[in-house]
C-alpha cells in the first residue's frame, strides 16, 4: 500500500521540479522581477526603449558581457574568480585581426586566437590548481601581463581589419537578427549542457560547495579547476573576436574593466561568490539587467561618468543581495523571495 501510494505521488512532483522552465523562474524570481520593473519604467519614460530595433540592439550589446559572464559563472561555481577576461578580450581581438592582416585566412585566424585564449586559461588554471595561490591574486597579476602583451604586439595602436566577411560577423544580420545573438545562443546551449548534463558539471558544484568533501569523494579537483579556467578564457577570447569584428579593428585597450561587468552579471543572476551555486539562465538574466540598465541610462541622456557611478552601486547591491540570500539575512530573503531551491 505504502509503495503504491508513493509511486502515484512521485511522478507528479518530479515533472514540476525537473521542468527546467519552472525551475528557472523559481530560482530567479527576484531578478526577473527587477528586470521587468526596469523595462516597464523605461518603456514609460522613453519613446525609444520599447522598439524592436532598440531591443535587438540591447541584445547585441549584452552578447560580449554574457559570454564573459558564462565563463565567470563556471569559475565562481568552483569557488574561484577570473580577472583576466577583460585583458583576454583585448589581446584576442588584436591577435585575430593581426593574424588576418598577415595573410592567414579568417577561420584559422579565429581558431588560433581561441587557442591563444586556451593557453592563457591553462596558465591561470595550472598556477591556481598546483600552487594553491589565491585565484584573485593570480588572475589579477596576469590581467596586467596580458594587457601589456596586447600593447606590445600592436605597439599601442589599434589595427584596422580589411576583411569584410570578418567585420560582418559582429555587425551583420541573419533573418533580421544580429549574428552575435546566434553565437550567444549556441554558446549558451553548449555551456548549459556541460553544466547540467555531464559529470564534469556536477563535480564543479561539488568543488565549490565543499572542497574538502569533494576531495574525500575522489573528485579530481586539479583537473577540473584547470579545465574551468580554460573554458573561461576561451569564452573571453571568443568575446574578444566578436568585439574586434564589431569595431572593425583590434584594439589593445578593448575590454578594459569588462571583468567587473561579468562578475556583476553572474552575481546578479544568483551565482554565489563563495562557490557551489550558480546557473546559466540566471547569469543571462543578470547580463540582461546590466544591458538594459546601460541602454536605459543612455536613452535617458545620463552622462557616462554618472553611469559609472550608478553601475558601481548596482554591483555593490548585487553582492549584498548574494550575502542576504546565502548568509545571515536568510530569513529576510525568505520573507521577500520565498524559499530558494536549487
Amino acid at each position: 500500500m505504502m509503495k503504491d501510494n508513493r509511486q502515484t505521488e512521485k511522478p507528479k512532483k518530479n515533472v514540476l521540479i525537473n521542468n527546467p522552465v519552472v525551475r528557472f523562474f523559481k530560482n530567479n524570481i527576484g531578478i526577473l522581477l527587477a528586470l521587468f520593473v526596469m523595462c516597464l519604467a523605461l518603456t514609460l519614460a522613453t519613446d525609444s526603449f520599447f522598439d524592436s530595433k532598440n531591443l535587438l540592439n540591447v541584445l547585441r550589446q549584452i552578447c560580449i558581457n554574457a559570454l564573459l559572464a558564462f565563463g565567470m559563472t563556471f569559475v565562481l561555481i568552483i569557488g574561484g574568480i577570473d580577472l583576466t577576461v577583460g585583458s583576454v578580450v583585448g589581446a584576442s581581438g588584436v591577435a585575430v585581426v593581426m593574424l588576418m592582416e598577415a595573410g592567414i585566412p579568417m577561420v584559422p585566424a579565429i581558431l588560433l586566437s581561441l587557442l591563444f585564449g586556451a593557453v592563457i586559461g591553462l596558465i591561470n588554471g595550472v598556477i591556481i590548481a598546483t600552487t594553491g595561490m589565491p585565484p584573485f591574486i593570480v588572475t589579477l597579476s596576469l590581467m596586467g601581463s596580458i594587457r601589456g602583451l596586447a600593447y606590445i604586439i600592436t605597439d599601442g595602436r589599434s589595427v584596422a581589419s580589411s576583411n569584410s566577411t570578418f567585420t560582418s560577423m559582429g555587425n551583420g544580420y541573419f533573418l533580421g537578427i544580429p549574428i552575435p545573438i546566434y553565437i550567444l545562443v549556441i554558446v549558451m546551449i553548449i555551456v548549459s549542457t556541460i553544466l547540467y548534463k555531464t559529470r564534469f558539471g556536477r563535480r564543479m558544484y561539488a568543488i565549490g560547495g565543499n572542497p574538502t568533501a569533494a576531495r574525500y569523494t575522489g573528485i579530481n579537483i586539479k583537473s577540473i579547476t584547470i579545465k574551468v579556467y580554460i573554458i573561461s578564457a576561451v569564452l573571453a577570447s571568443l568575446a574578444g573576436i566578436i568585439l574586434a569584428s564589431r569595431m572593425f579593428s583590434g584594439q589593445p585597450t578593448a575590454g578594459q574593466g569588462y571583468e567587473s561587468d561579468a562578475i556583476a552579471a553572474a552575481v546578479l543572476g544568483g551565482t554565489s561568490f563563495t562557490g557551489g551555486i550558480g546557473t546559466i539562465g540566471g547569469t543571462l538574466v543578470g547580463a540582461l539587467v546590466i544591458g538594459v540598465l546601460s541602454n536605459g541610462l543612455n536613452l535617458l541622456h545620463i552622462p557616462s561618468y554618472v553611469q559609472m557611478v550608478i553601475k558601481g552601486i548596482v554591483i555593490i547591491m548585487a553582492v549584498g543581495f548574494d550575502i542576504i540570500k546565502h548568509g545571515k539575512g536568510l530569513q529576510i530573503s525568505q520573507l521577500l523571495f520565498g524559499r530558494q531551491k536549487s
Partner: protein
Amino acid sequence: MDNQYFLEMYGICKTFPGARVLNNVELKIKPGEVRALMGENGAGKSTLIKILGGIYSKDHGCGCIKINGKEVEINSVHDAMAHGISIIHQEICLAENMSVADNLFMGQEMLKKVKCFVDDKQMIKKAQQVIDSMGMDIDVRTKVGDLSIAKQQMVEICRALMYDSKLIVMDEPTSSLTQAEIEQLFAQIEKLKKSGIAIIYISHRMDEIFRIADSITVLRDGELIGTDLAANLDRDRLIAMMVGRELMEVQKTERKHELADECLVVKNLGNMKLRDINFSLRRGEILGFAGLVGAGRTELARAIFGIDRIDSGEIYINGEKVSIKNPRDAIARKIAYVPEDRKHEGLFLVHDIRYNISISILERFIKIVGVNRKKEQAILDEHREKLSIRMTSGDQKVQELSGGNQQKVLVSKWLATDPEILILDEPTRGIDVGAKAAIYRLIYDLAEQGVAIMLISSEMEEIINLSDRIIVMHEGEIAGELENRGTSESMQEEIMVLASGGRLNDER
C-alpha cells in the same frame, strides 16, 4: 579567605536542541586549588568550561554562578575575563607573527601620554617583567611563531595573568608537549598555585592528574558523578567513576557467522601522526577502534584512504600490495570513508539530497552527455528506503535535515559506491537514538553481507556492542588488541586503561 570558594557553580544545566548535555552540575573551587576535570568524550566537560568562559550561556533560570560568594552573570567572553576567568584552549590562540610582548598586550595596549600612540618601550618592559617573574627565559621581542609549543603555552598563561586572572582553565594543555616541556608547565602551575590562583585542569592522562591535581571532579553523560580529593582516589576507582556501571541502551545482538579471509592488511604503517601500525581486517568483520581524542584513529583512517601521506609501511588489499596516493585510488580499491565531521568533510550542504547521494557514482547515470533521470531516481529511492531517510523529496537541501538524517545521507553516499571496506569515523556522533539504531542495524547488515568494517568510535558501548574485535590506540600507536568477549564492564575498563597509556598486566 581559606574557607571561601573563589568560584561556585550550582545546578548548571545546558540543553541543545534535542539533547540535554549538562544536568544539575555543581563545581566549587578555592583559590590556589588545582582541580582536575575528568570524564569520557562527550561527558560535558567542555560544555561546562564554555559556560564558565562565556562562550555558551547556561539554560535560562537554571542554576547560578558565584564568584567570591557573589552571584554573577557571565554572558560573554568579556564578562568572564572581567571576573578573572581565563581559558587556555587546546589549540594555541596567539598571533604567530607578532612578538611576545604584542601578544601579551593584545587588546589592552599601553598608551603614551599623547593618547593615540602605543607605548612600545613601556610594554616591552612590563611584558619582560611578567615573563621573568614566571622564571621563563624568553626575550619578549621574539616572534611567537619562533617559540616552541611549550613556550607558546607559557605565553598564553602569562597572558591570562596579564588580565589579572584568578582562575585559569587549561584544556588538555599537554597534548602537544614533550615530557621535558610538561615538566616546565607543571613547575609553572605550582608557582601559580602558590600565588593563590585556582586552576581547572582538563586531561585524559591519569599520571598527570595524580601528579598535580589536589582534587578531581568526574562528569559522565552530563551529570556530576562526584568530587573528591585526589589522595582519596586511585586509577581504578577513577575509571569506574568515568565509565559507570549502567546497563547499555544498545542491544547486543548475537552475530553468528564465519569470518572470511583477510581483505585488508596493514603492515608497519607510519607517518607524521602514526607509528608502526599493524592490523588485519576480514570480510564481514567489524573491527572497533577505541581510544581518546587525538589517539590517531582518524589519522589512521585518513592514511588508509589516501588523504594523509604514508611515510613507511605497506597496505595489502585482498592479498595484493597497493599504493594509495589519494582518495580516488582508495575508492577504486572499493574503500569508503565516512568522515567524522560530516558538515565540513562529508556533505555538500547547499545541494539537495539527490545530488549528495549520487555525487560519487555519477558514471552510473551520466554517460558522456545526458542525465538518466530514472536511474538517478532509482538510486535515491533505494538508499532512502535502506536507511529510512526522512525527507520531503530528493530536492530538499541537506542543510535543512536533522543531524541524524544528514548522517544517513552521508552513509548512503558511500554505500552507493558498493564498498568492500567501509571506514566509519564516529558514525553516531550527535545524532538521536532512532537514527543511531538505524545505523547500527545497517552496520550489522553490511557485515552480514561480507563488507569489512572499521568502526572508529569514542562511545564505549557502541564499540563493545558492535565490534568483533577492538583495537585500542594511544598517541599514534596501537596500545592493544582485545577479542570481544562480550562482558562489557571489564572490557570498558581494559579499554580505558589502554587508551590512557596504561598496561593491562598492571591491573588484576
